[in-house]
């Protein structure tokens, strides 16, 4: 299949969005859903075709000497800032872009299908705004696809904004609920703040490299910023600000942009709230695709980051801390979606850390394929995580749809009633916990190896977080499906959902089982050359052991109803509450935005405007008015008064003139 078909992959969702958005309102609700699914199916098939062609197909310029090259399919000018600085809207395929095509279309397809069932009530009637929902899904898919095939940094920024908006619209889908509006607003503004840094980063970077393009195009004869990263850095080397080079600043700012989308600490606060959106949306956007945009961004600029070690260290620290922080919170959350959201944050932080450690030196490098290992592991984990996290969210959606609550104390013991869901969830949990042979094991193992390469401390830290992952995932699992007998409501007992909802679960579960065997090391590497890896038995065994300990602990505490969890919570009340309240980050933000910015800046400025500036101009008017009314008295209409003034005026002038004549 020609790689230029990628255009269709991008265009179909866009057309779908326009069609459903403009015409859909007039159409039968179900029909729009089916149309959306068909459109998505075509997109998915095309995307698979393109991606597989890129990886395995006949050579279309993507392989040179066994090294995969980036292929620019299409790259027209979109906006010319100056002769050299041009924003292009193009399509570029390279290993990660092709992989992302598969991830996005797969999850999106599953979500489209799943939503057919989920967005209906129990009688099978589609919800209000069904058409809008599918239009927004198409818009999101388009934006995300546009983001991953971007040929230049600015295009990524553009689609960053687009996915942000689609996310905003979908989180706020239930726009009558105040919580949803609040969450959507929060998500948009926090990511917007991060995008601001991203923008500044782009401005700095493009100023010094004089291009936005990643790779130069032979047609235009220009060099991109990744063609020769050293040269790009050298251009910025002379400039420095506050002791760091301009490039370090730029890359850090760009990372902050990515951190906003990828919910790194402290910009993570929007993601748990984003769960106010419909659950399939959470699966698609806030678990599988959009939230990894930040990881993708850093991976995209990896050649630059590798050289600029300072920025890399920041990413590493932030990632490692976030992984632990989110895992700790996930251990105590009672809302199933919240817990999954924190798990997502933690897992994305794994990917970030993995990218950041991959440039570390050390003797292990020679054995394990050099500094591309972390990069490869990160991308691989991105892929597997997307699958099993989507699976987990869709399962959660099925459960919520069945019991009408997000809280796990409303669930308990559902295993009997929803066996398919239960098995699918279990597979997801095993995958994320890193139990072989499920997908998560393979990718997480690589990440841990890369972390040990960076330093033994990093490795231990990440292993510990991996153990926590296993613990909190199985905590959720046991609390939902076991713990104690479910109180069956008489009107409708929870049961497995219709086939539109279970089929995606089964497919994703299957993928989660086998995805680990994808030869990622051969396909997805930062320089395109295959990476030779081998299983590091020490790391693998330890990590499996730690995961098992985590699972065992969860089994002990949560499989059967027992007072142990409550006792622990009571004993460490302070810690437990802090973790449950997410370490008060939301309150901190609330304080800054409301008390400091709104009350402390906006209100005084508005007052200042009315009182001082407006007051000044009003005062001018007032003074004029007063003086005018004062002067008006002079215009009395009394002729004699005029004569006095006139006569004495004339005398005065005469006298003055006389004085001048005399002297």
């Amino acid at each position: 299949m020609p790689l230029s078909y990628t255009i269709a992959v991008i265009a179909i969702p866009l057309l779908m969005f326009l069609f459903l958005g403009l015409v859909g309102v007039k159409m039968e609700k179900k029909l729009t859903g089916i149309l959306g699914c068909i459109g998505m199916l075509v997109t998915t098939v095309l995307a698979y075709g393109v991606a597989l062609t890129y990886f395995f197909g006949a050579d279309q310029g993507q392989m040179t000497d066994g090294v995969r090259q980036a292929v620019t399919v299409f790259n027209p000018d979109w906006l010319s800032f100056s002769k050299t600085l041009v924003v292009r809207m193009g399509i570029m395929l390279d290993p990660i872009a092709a992989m992302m095509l598969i991830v996005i279309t797969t999850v999106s397809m599953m979500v489209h299908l799943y939503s057919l069932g989920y967005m209906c009530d129990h009688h099978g009637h589609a919800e209000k705004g069904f058409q809008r929902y599918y239009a927004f899904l198409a818009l999101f898919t388009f934006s995300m696809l546009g983001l991953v095939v971007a040929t230049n940094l600015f295009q990524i920024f553009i689609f960053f904004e687009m996915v942000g908006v689609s996310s905003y619209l979908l989180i706020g889908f239930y726009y009558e609920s105040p919580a949803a509006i609040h969450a959507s607003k929060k998500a948009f503004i926090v990511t917007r703040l991060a995008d601001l840094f991203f923008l500044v980063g782009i401005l700095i970077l493009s100023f010094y490299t004089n291009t936005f393009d990643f790779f130069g195009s032979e047609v235009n004869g220009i060099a991109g910023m990744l063609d020769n990263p050293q040269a790009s850095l050298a251009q910025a080397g002379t400039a420095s600000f506050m002791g760091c080079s301009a490039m370090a600043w730029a890359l850090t700012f760009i990372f902050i942009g990515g951190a906003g989308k990828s919910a790194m600490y402290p910009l993570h606060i929007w993601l748990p709230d984003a769960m106010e959106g419909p659950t399939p949306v959470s699966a698609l956007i806030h678990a599988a695709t959009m939230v990894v945009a930040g990881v993708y961004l850093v991976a995209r600029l990896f050649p630059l980051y590798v050289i600029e070690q300072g920025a890399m260290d920041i990413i590493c620290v932030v990632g490692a801390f976030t992984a632990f922080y989110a895992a700790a919170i996930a251990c105590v959350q009672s809302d199933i979606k919240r817990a999954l959201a924190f798990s997502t944050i933690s897992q994305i932080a794994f990917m970030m850390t993995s990218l950041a450690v991959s440039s570390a030196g050390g003797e292990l490098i020679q054995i394990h394929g050099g500094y591309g290992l972390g990069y490869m592991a990160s991308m691989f984990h991105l892929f597997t995580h997307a699958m099993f996290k989507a699976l987990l969210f869709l399962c959660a959606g099925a459960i919520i749809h069945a019991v009408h609550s997000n809280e796990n104390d409303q669930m308990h013991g559902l295993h009997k009633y929803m066996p398919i869901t239960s098995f699918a969830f279990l597979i997801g949990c095993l995958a994320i916990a890193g139990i072989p042979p499920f997908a998560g094991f393979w990718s997480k193992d690589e990440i841990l190896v890369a972390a040990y390469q960076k330093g033994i401390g990093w490795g231990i830290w990440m292993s510990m977080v991996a153990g926590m992952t296993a613990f909190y995932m199985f905590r959720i699992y046991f609390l939902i499906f076991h713990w104690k007998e479910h109180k069956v409501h008489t009107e409708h007992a929870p049961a497995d959902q219709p086939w539109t909802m279970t089929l995606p679960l089964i497919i994703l579960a299957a993928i989660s089982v086998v995805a680990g065997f994808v030869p990622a090391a051969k396909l997805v590497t930062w320089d395109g050359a295959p990476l030779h890896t081998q299983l590091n038995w020490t790391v693998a065994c330890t990590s499996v052991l730690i995961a098992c300990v985590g699972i065992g602990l969860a089994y002990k505490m949560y499989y059967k109803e027992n007072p142990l969890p409550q006792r622990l919570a009571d004993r460490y009340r302070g810690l437990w509450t802090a973790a449950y309240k997410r370490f008060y980050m939301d309150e901190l933000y609330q304080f800054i935005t409301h008390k400091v910015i709104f009350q402390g800046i906006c209100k005084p400025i508005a007052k200042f405007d009315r009182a001082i500036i407006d007051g000044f101009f009003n005062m001018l008017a007032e003074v004029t008015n007063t003086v005018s009314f004062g002067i008006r008295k002079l215009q009395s209409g009394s002729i004699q008064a005029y004569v006095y003034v006139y006569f004495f005026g004339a005398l005065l002038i005469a006298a003055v003139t006389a004085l001048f004549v005399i002297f």
Partner: protein
Amino acid sequence: MESLGNIIMFFVIVLSIIVFSVLTVTTRRLLRSATYLLFVLFATAALYFKMDYPFLGAVQIAVYAGGIVVLFVFSILLTQHPDDDAESLSKPRKWLGIVAALAGVALSAAALFGYAKFCGRLVPAMDDVTMEKLGRFLLSTEKWGYLLPFEAVSVLLLACIIGGVVIARRR
């Protein structure tokens, strides 16, 4: 050197002008004021005669003394109540007027004495201003001719007549 008659004439005219002017503005009764004005106008007419402008003197008497003053008298009689003939002046107003008048007079006098060269002149000899000469100038369109202002004044008088009729007509 002037003849004594001239000097006496001069003093009579000048004194009557001064005295009656002052009386005109200082008397409280309007009717008297108008009468004093009449005397002033007569004295002025006499001055014109003395300056060898008999036509001007005649006009002065006919128009001013004969016309305007009569108008004044009529309007005074029409507007005055019999009992409020005395007009009282407030002190500050009076003094302000005196100061203004004196200051003006003083300034002008200073200017006059500053131009002693002109002011010291005597009356030069002059041809008679005959009526013929006057009429020619008045109706001439040549240089020094006054036809245009003459016509303008006639239009003005017409406008004035019409205006007077319109204003005075009872609506």
